């Protein structure tokens, strides 16, 4: 029940509020103006073209964005509405969320959504990298917003020690010390970081998907983001566990399970044998 309400609240909030998410403080005003302009433009376009006219040949869109729009109109329009303005009760507006958000949601398979629930789950992506880029380009050109830098390796020269410190202060409370994720209120959760790529982590920090707070470039500079990504990818994921099997890095709960399932069970078997008559 609670989670239902939350989602509705969340979606409404997104509907109303998403545009603001793109703003970086110092360009806030400008952004707002452009946003309102974009909204009016989009709204105007909608009223003009709604009865059935196709907006495919929108002259403002670049080639990639036009491709993206074609994809959007097939797979996303049901929930996010024509021109990504959102549909009440189904999906939020995507105006101003930026390419970063699209990239995160689509490349991690969270979008398109399989079903409405407290939170989208990671799935095998539906779109190829190329298609994802096109979708992102389309949304970017519709309303602007944060963009992930070019390249697949976003941790160049990242300092794992600095990254570790930033990770512990900003990330570990939700994603846990080993990056395995954790529970949030009412069925929501912070996902595991293990399947995430550099770009996805970067995009998530920039765009604050779902309930994750936004860590804009003003708050964590790009080089600090590189540090964090380096810590996650190199120390948490790549470094070998020096102490044997890590029991899933769930902390003391699996350790407690292990002492009973392995230690006590083994020793009870041993004592059965020792005291046994045969």
């Amino acid at each position, binding site marked *: 029940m609670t989670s239902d309400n939350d989602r509705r609240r969340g979606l409404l*909030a997104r509907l109303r509020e998403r545009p*603001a*998410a793109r703003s970086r*403080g110092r360009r806030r005003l400008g952004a707002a103006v452009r946003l309102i302009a974009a909204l009016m433009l989009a709204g105007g376009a909608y009223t003009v073209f709604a009865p059935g006219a196709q907006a495919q040949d929108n002259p403002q869109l670049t080639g990639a964005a036009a491709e993206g729009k074609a994809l959007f109109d097939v797979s996303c329009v049901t929930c996010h509405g024509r021109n990504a303005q959102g549909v009440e009760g189904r999906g939020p507006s995507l105006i101003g969320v930026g390419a970063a958000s699209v990239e995160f949601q689509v490349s991690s398979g969270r979008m398109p959504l399989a079903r409405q629930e407290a939170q989208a789950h990671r799935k095998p992506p539906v779109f190829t990298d190329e298609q994802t880029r096109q979708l992102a380009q389309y949304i970017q050109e519709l309303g602007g917003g944060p963009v992930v830098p070019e390249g697949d390796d976003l941790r160049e020269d990242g300092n794992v020690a600095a990254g570790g410190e930033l990770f512990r202060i900003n990330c570990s*409370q939700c994603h846990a010390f080993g990056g395995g994720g954790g529970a949030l209120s009412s069925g*929501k959760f912070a996902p595991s970081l293990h399947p995430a790529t550099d770009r996805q982590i970067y995009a998530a920090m920039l765009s604050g998907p*779902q309930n994750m707070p936004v860590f804009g470039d003003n708050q964590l500079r790009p080089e600090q983001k590189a540090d964090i990504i380096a810590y996650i990818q190199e120390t948490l994921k790549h*470094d070998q*566990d*020096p102490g044997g099997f890590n029991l899933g890095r769930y902390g003391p709960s699996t350790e407690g399970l292990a002492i009973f399932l392995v230690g006590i069970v083994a020793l009870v078997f041993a004592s059965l044998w020792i005291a046994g008559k045969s």
Partner: protein
Amino acid sequence: MSPHTEHQASQGREPLDVNDPRLTRFDIVREGAHRDDIEIVHYEPQVLPGTKAERRLTRVVAGFFLITGLAATAFLAIYIWWPWQYEPGRGGDKFYTPLLGLTLGVALLAVGFGILTWGKKLLPKEVSIQDRHEGQVDKESRTITGQTMLYMADELGVKRRPLLGISLLAGLAPVAAVAAAPLVGGLISQPHKNNQMFTTGFAMPEGGQRIRLVREDGRPIRPADISTGGQLTVFPGIDHGVSNKHADSPTLLIHLRDSDAQESRRANERIGHGDYMWGNYAAFSKICTHAGCPASLFEQQTNRLLCPCHQSQFLITDNARPIFGPASRRLPQLPIEVDSEGFFVAKSDYTETVGPDFWERP
């Protein structure tokens, strides 16, 4: 050796003369057991000397001990020669500790099972019965001891000379206190020294300036540093502000969305905290009012703050009121504004007590 399961005459039988040269060693053992009220009723070798079974079991036990030797040698070799140090880009060696554990474990298990097999399979099975003498407390002895103690009490004459007893007690009581005094006196520490339980690092020094909010690296914070829907852990900009010396000061600075900020402001006004926010920014203590963990799992869409230790949930837009879990008190809010240079400052210290509850918290 043949099984010693002959019938025994037990109680009331004459003790054997253990120096009798005709007795076997087992006879003497059994005589010893008798003297401890033990009847060895069944004593039967499991394997007969010189049989195939004996040779087989001997080989098994010896095999276990040899495995121990091998595993222990392997342990030493790995301990000395295996590369074990942490290497950047690779981590500590994945196999060093597991191999040490494995070889040590195998060595110990093998010696254990060797000994167990030896004891369990090669030694004769036995059933002995020992008397407990339960309920056969020596009544005479009880009487003698009781009377002796009463006699001692009589001799001391505490009953006749009560002053002795009273004065002894009166004398010893302070001695006990003397033993406890240095410990208690040394440990005891006034909890309200400098009003420390009610102040944090944001308290303005006498006639001083308002304390700036700084990041973990000490840099002050401009409003533009936090995106909408973002949050930042901030500290008092004082000496050791970012350290465990001020464990009660860490604060969460949150940039709310417009509508949430309005809701938040209205909630603030309801409890007379109308001017605690600055713009869409609100700052709440990061230290949970329940058990003191950092309540820092901020959900930017539902505006809930979750504490990971006991799952208390606080609604930021309603003055961080606890809405779920064991916390009973809202997170204190830090009144903030922006100074002339454009950095966040605390208008004053927290106006409510920060951190877990205690008896004299008003």
